[in-house]
């Protein structure tokens, strides 16, 4: 065993508070250490060259670099030792920067600690074994979950790149939140006018297979080879026959169904097509309202349907698709108005949410684009917008900014003036967040050209007074109380993750934060990757995001998939669990506890049952290794002996 140890100064980052020379000197005395030196910047090209040279000159066969966190540079140095002819797993990193020099003030204590930590790395590297990747074939199809603008963009880019795409959307139509918007900031483009053609592209692309009104039931497999079970929810309408003529909707006697597309601004029919541009443009029955289901008799739609598409007996159907990568673009949801009782949310019909206001503004919305307040269908003249309705409010568990409310409130205020020239809009805000291109100019236009009155401060209470809603707040710039009698109040409600986000994350084996937003692999450098290889993120499922950012991420995720699929074979990570069949007693506790179903039982020729790891499925967590009573299954590179070597190097010293 000839271990080489390289201790990095990292300029002054390490050498400033650790006596690196003393560390090298102490380490040199460890039996098995053939060479120990220090270097100014070990990760630099000359630094790496020095490692390669020393491997040659001193015939080193194991390498330890004491420098920054392995999360930073482990891969860099693994490649270095590999280039010098060693197996890349004959390498360990001792973290003497983030865990020592940057956090300890006492140089002597730091140096002592650094010596210990390097000793532990040396002990571990002596227990390291060479590991080799194996290659496996990949299925070059991609699953996109969510048919909002991010998912559509990702699907289109993948499909244009030649990949077969399976697009799963849980609601009856693709289009997502953007299809509900009236106009978009800062250009005042008509939202559906720019989204509609994209939706048609998705529908007509011969590489895209669309499952609308479907959800993910089960995900099995690993990067390159996933098996997906998709639940096609019962629509009670045979979509192969439905032409989208709308005759059923017209004649349906159940008129009070909740309109999910319009966020309940007005009721819809129990059988409906959500909006004129819907894709697929097919009808669907809501069994909670349909008289056939609630009262047991009706059947009007079945009688009227010219193609006999109605099928009240329809059941959910499970289909299986095989893909090699997954793009998650499940979007967001919005805070319920009821969660804002001080604003009268849910209690007063004339306190509505921003997204509901979009539907009032929209020409194909329930009011045909005339702004009429819900209570009495009268045109409002004084409109108050409240931003940060729930957002940035620790007391209700939403400390974060919802990202795009400032902008859409400015847009809605501008549009209000266009619709009702003699109206006056007020905006209560905490800060105006408008850092995008053309965004700040846009909010200024609202104030300067459209006369929208911006009041910096929070609203404390909203209550009715006759036909008006009194908005009580404070103007923190003037330092005075404000009271506005409004005809209509629009709340910029907080953006939330989807209620079932955690559930899906568990199926995908990806992480999510306290708020249910999915966690990217690196907040700066890997924004669309997840820590599960083969699973990528796009859009607001990762955090509140506006349209251009969502579209950008959709394209970014697609490019990641295209890059992944540019190879025919993938290399597996060899740091997976391995069974010693001579030791294994076949108790199969590992099989039962593996979070990835990566272990199966195998019968040997002598009839003995042992555990068997499916290397490509194993994610390398090591739960099996700490479960196995006899140590027969060992997570490679984190074996019992490797960890014990570290414990002993430290404790027995």
């Amino acid at each position: 065993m000839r271990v080489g140890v390289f201790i990095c100064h990292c300029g002054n980052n390490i050498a400033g508070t650790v006596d690196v020379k003393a560390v090298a000197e102490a380490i040199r005395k460890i039996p098995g250490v053939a060479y120990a030196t220090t270097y100014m910047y070990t990760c630099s090209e000359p630094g790496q060259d020095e490692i390669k040279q020393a491997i040659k000159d001193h015939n080193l066969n194991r390498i330890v670099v004491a420098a920054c966190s392995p999360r930073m540079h482990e891969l860099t140095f693994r490649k270095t030792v590999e280039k010098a002819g060693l197996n890349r797993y004959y390498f360990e990193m001792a973290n003497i920067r983030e865990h020592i020099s940057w956090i300890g003030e006492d140089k002597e204590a730091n140096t002592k600690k650094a010596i210990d930590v390097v000793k532990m790395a040396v002990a571990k590297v002596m227990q390291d074994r060479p590991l080799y990747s194996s290659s496996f074939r990949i299925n070059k199809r991609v699953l996109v979950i969510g048919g909002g603008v991010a998912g559509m963009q990702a699907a289109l880019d993948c499909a244009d790149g030649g990949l077969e795409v399976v697009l799963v959307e849980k609601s009856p139509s693709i289009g997502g939140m953007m299809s509900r918007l009236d106009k978009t900031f800062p250009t005042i483009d008509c939202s559906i006018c720019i989204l509609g053609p994209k939706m048609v592209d998705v529908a007509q692309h011969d590489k895209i297979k669309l499952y609308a009104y479907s959800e993910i039931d089960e995900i099995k497999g690993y990067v390159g080879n996933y098996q997906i079970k998709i639940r096609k929810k019962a629509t009670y309408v045979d979509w192969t026959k439905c032409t989208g003529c709308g005759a059923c909707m017209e004649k349906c006697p159940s008129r009070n169904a909740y309109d999910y597309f319009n966020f309940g601004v007005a009721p819809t029919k129990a059988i409906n097509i959500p909006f004129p541009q819907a894709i697929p443009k097919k009808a669907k029955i809501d069994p909670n309202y349909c008289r056939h289901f609630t009262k047991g008799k009706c059947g009007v739609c079945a009688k009227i349907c010219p193609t006999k598409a109605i099928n009240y007996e329809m059941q959910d159907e499970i289909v299986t698709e095989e893909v090699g990568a997954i793009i998650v673009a499940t979007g967001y949801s919005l805070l319920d108005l009821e969660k804002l009782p001080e604003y009268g949310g849910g209690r007063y019909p004339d306190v509505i949410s921003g997204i509901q206001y979009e539907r009032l503004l929209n020409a194909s919305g329930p009011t045909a684009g005339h702004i009429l307040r819900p209570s009495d269908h009268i045109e409002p003249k004084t409109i108050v917008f409240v931003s940060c309705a729930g957002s940035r409010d620790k007391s209700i568990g939403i400390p974060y900014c919802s990202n795009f409310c400032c902008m859409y409130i400015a847009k809605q205020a501008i549009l209000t003036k266009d619709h009702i020239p003699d109206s006056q809009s007020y905006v209560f805000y905490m800060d105006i967040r408008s850092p995008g291109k053309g965004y700040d100019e846009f909010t200024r236009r609202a104030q300067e050209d459209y006369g929208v009155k911006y009041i910096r401060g929070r609203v404390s209470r909203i209550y009715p007074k006759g036909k008006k809603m009194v908005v009580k707040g404070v103007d923190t710039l003037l330092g005075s109380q404000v009271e506005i009698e409004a005809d209509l109040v629009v709340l910029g409600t907080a953006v939330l993750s989807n209620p079932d986000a955690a559930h899906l994350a568990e199926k995908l084996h990806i992480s999510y934060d306290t708020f249910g937003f999915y966690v990217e692999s690196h907040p700066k450098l890997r924004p669309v990757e997840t820590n599960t290889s083969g699973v990528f993120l796009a859009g607001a499922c990762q955090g509140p995001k506006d349209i251009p950012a969502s579209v950008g991420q959709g394209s970014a995720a697609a490019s990641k998939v295209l890059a992944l699929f540019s190879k025919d074979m993938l290399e597996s990570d060899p740091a997976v669990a391995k069974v010693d069949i001579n030791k294994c007693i076949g108790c199969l506790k590992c099989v039962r506890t593996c979070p990835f179903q990566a272990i199966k039982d195998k019968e040997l020729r002598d009839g003995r049952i042992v555990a068997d790891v499916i290397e490509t499925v194993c994610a390398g967590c090591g739960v099996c290794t700490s479960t196995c009573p006899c140590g027969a299954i060992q997570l490679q590179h984190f074996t019992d002996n490797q960890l014990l070597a570290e414990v002993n190097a430290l404790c027995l010293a």
Partner: protein
Amino acid sequence: MSVDKLKDAVKQILNEVDIVIGYTEGFDKVHATPLFINTQDKVDQLIWDQRCVHNLASYLPSLKRKKVGVIVKGCDSRTIVQYIQEGLINRENVKIIGLPCSGVISLKKLLKAVDFANIDDITFEDNGNVNVKTEKETKTLSLMDIAPDKCKTCQYPTPLIYDILIGDPIKSDKPKESVYEDIIEFDKKSLEEKLAYWQKVFDRCIRCYACRNACPMCVCQDSCIAESREPHWISQRATLTEKFMFHLIHTVHLAGRCVECGECERACPMGIPVNTLKRKINLEMKELFDYVPGVNPDDKPPMYTFNVDELKIKEHKIG
């Protein structure tokens, strides 16, 4: 219960299984020994009385692929239930003959009671009296005075699982709270006292592995990490550290699995209370997960499963 009924039952099931495991006379009057019956003519060697201390269920995992009949007492039956929970046996391959039991003898206690004299004969009466004839005297003892501790708080005198039950079921007359009284009492001692106690008792350990070999749940047997270098959890040094480590390996591996049959303590030549730590953990398993090993075949051993929300595990504050 006459032993003839047992013999009839064994004769019958011998047609369906490869082997039946029961008890027979040992090398002297106080010992019974396991009997492996594969032919009808061996059936007559069967005995059944208070000397039948062994947990015969322990043999089942190693005979997993055979059809086996086994004679079990109430306490032993928990081993079978635990095996079923852990998938270590195939239930359909096992024929269980259950025997309600109101206590067995502890050889160690018996010998002590007769001052370690040689015992020439021993007979058991229905009223719980044990007549012992030694080289010096004839003595009548009460069974409960010379029974293992587990019998004194036995909650399961009737087997929990069986195909054939011979004799009438017995209901436990021991209060539930008595089972862990000794554990709760010991835990009241100071940390120093407790540590000193374990240092003292573990120091006696000679690493003979008798406790492990006797333990029905120590299914690793020859793959035990106590004797392995790959992985190398423990060295062969005869230090207190290594002895301590061995007993904690045993304890951690038995966490939430120990059926408290007491075979470990029966086998220990050094009188180490090997079962105590496992029983302490069982007490915690009951409290944390409402789990009792070896009682319900459908339960999952708590260390091999989880709840996303653990109702009883609270986040600890430091210190």
